[in-house]
């Protein structure tokens, strides 16, 4: 569904990573690990097609061609209401969903009661929930999440994880970076570890060596 072929990336003259080759299949959750500056966010942006790799290629062969990207930025227009935000993204993605459908998605992320409030009045966590609603609206083939927990309370984090499992059940390919390695390692089918510019581990999270996990936990 998503393939990285000998991807390398440079920031100026600094090599961030090189020779990253792997494929991501449908119905899987992959945990992308690495210390600060390892290039996790850059790699996710390359997968999303938002950044062109310096070398190599990222190929996407999803059925619907839809990629969801959930990152630190919430993509929310503060002066629009929650419902207007969702309506805009529905139109921009050329989707056909009724207003009731949009309200039901807002209900899924716990924002039904705030549907007509401006997003600018939302906390960071609520804005991220609205961002999650945008992703749910899309039902993407590939879902890329860059530390999606940031600013979310425990209930929102649980909601996010529920939706990730639902996306996997639906056949989506999920790749995420995370602060909470121990918890997300249980969720993921596979872990990738970026270290010293290379892919140091590609396999089940259970095979990550304890020093790796400890290092990620302290560096993330």
């Amino acid at each position, binding site marked *: 569904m998503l393939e990285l072929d000998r991807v390398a990336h440079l920031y100026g003259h600094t090599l961030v990573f090189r020779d990253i080759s792997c494929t991501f299949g449908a119905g899987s959750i992959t945990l992308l690990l690495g210390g600060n500056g390892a290039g996790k966010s850059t790699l996710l942006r390359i997968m999303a097609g938002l950044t062109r790799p310096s070398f190599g290629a990222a190929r996407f062969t999803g059925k619907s061609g839809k990629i969801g990207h959930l990152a630190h*930025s919430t993509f929310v227009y503060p002066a629009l209401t929650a419902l207007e935000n969702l309506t805009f993204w529905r139109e921009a993605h050329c989707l056909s969903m009724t207003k009731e459908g949009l309200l039901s998605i807002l209900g899924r992320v716990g924002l039904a009661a705030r549907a007509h409030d401006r997003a600018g009045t939302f906390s960071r966590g609520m804005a991220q929930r609205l961002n999650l609603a945008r992703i749910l609206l899309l039902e993407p083939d590939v879902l890329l999440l860059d530390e999606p927990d940031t600013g979310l309370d425990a209930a929102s984090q649980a909601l996010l994880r529920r939706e990730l499992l639902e996306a996997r059940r639906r056949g989506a390919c999920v790749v995420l970076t995370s602060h909470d390695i121990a918890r997300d390692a249980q969720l993921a089918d596979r872990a990738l570890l970026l270290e010293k510019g290379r892919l140091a581990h590609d396999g089940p999270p259970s095979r990550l060596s304890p020093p790796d996990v400890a290092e990620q936990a302290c560096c993330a």
Partner: protein
Amino acid sequence: MLRMTLAVLRKDMTLTLLRSSGLVQTLLLGLLLVFVFSLSQGVGENLNARNAAAVFWLSSAFCQVLIFNQLYALEETNDSRLGLLLCPAPIQAVWLGKAIAGLVLLLLAQCVFLPATVVFLGQSLNGPLRPALAILLLTDTGMCALGSLLGALAQGQTTRESLLSIVLFPLLAPLLLAGTGIGAQVFGSADPDGPGAWLGLAAAFDAIFLAAGLLLFAFLYTGDE
């Protein structure tokens, strides 16, 4: 592409006219220009028709810079630009949606600037009105096609106001010349050549700017940070 264009247009119009200060800042700037030029006349004197038309287009051009800065700033608050880049429609839909939104806002502003020019600069609308309407639409179309393209270039830059002005005004010169030429006729100045040549010039530059927008926008808007 049309659906995304309309979505961007509707969103930008809602945010600009209903959820922010709207056109207040741009209108004030344009009106201030017209008013200041009115002070250059002595008591009982009127500015000549060509100068009055130039003041009208100058106000419109400044107004256009503010409009496109405002329209592209909407995507900067929470990085919504990245969300737009992930949409399946061609990204030119954003350029077109913002160009049309800018055109509507500019026309609204000109509905205020025109009477202000007539009143403050002592002009009367006694020239040919049909070519005047045509040149207004042609010049505004070109200005907005270019403004929407260069607005994308300036987005995210701390110096965007000056960057947009520096790049935009030299390129707009032919259109402003055409607008001023026909504007002068509308305000009563005689031109033996008539409006045909100016209309041709404006249409040619519209074609160039529209083509440039379609071809170049993706490069400017999708650039990596």
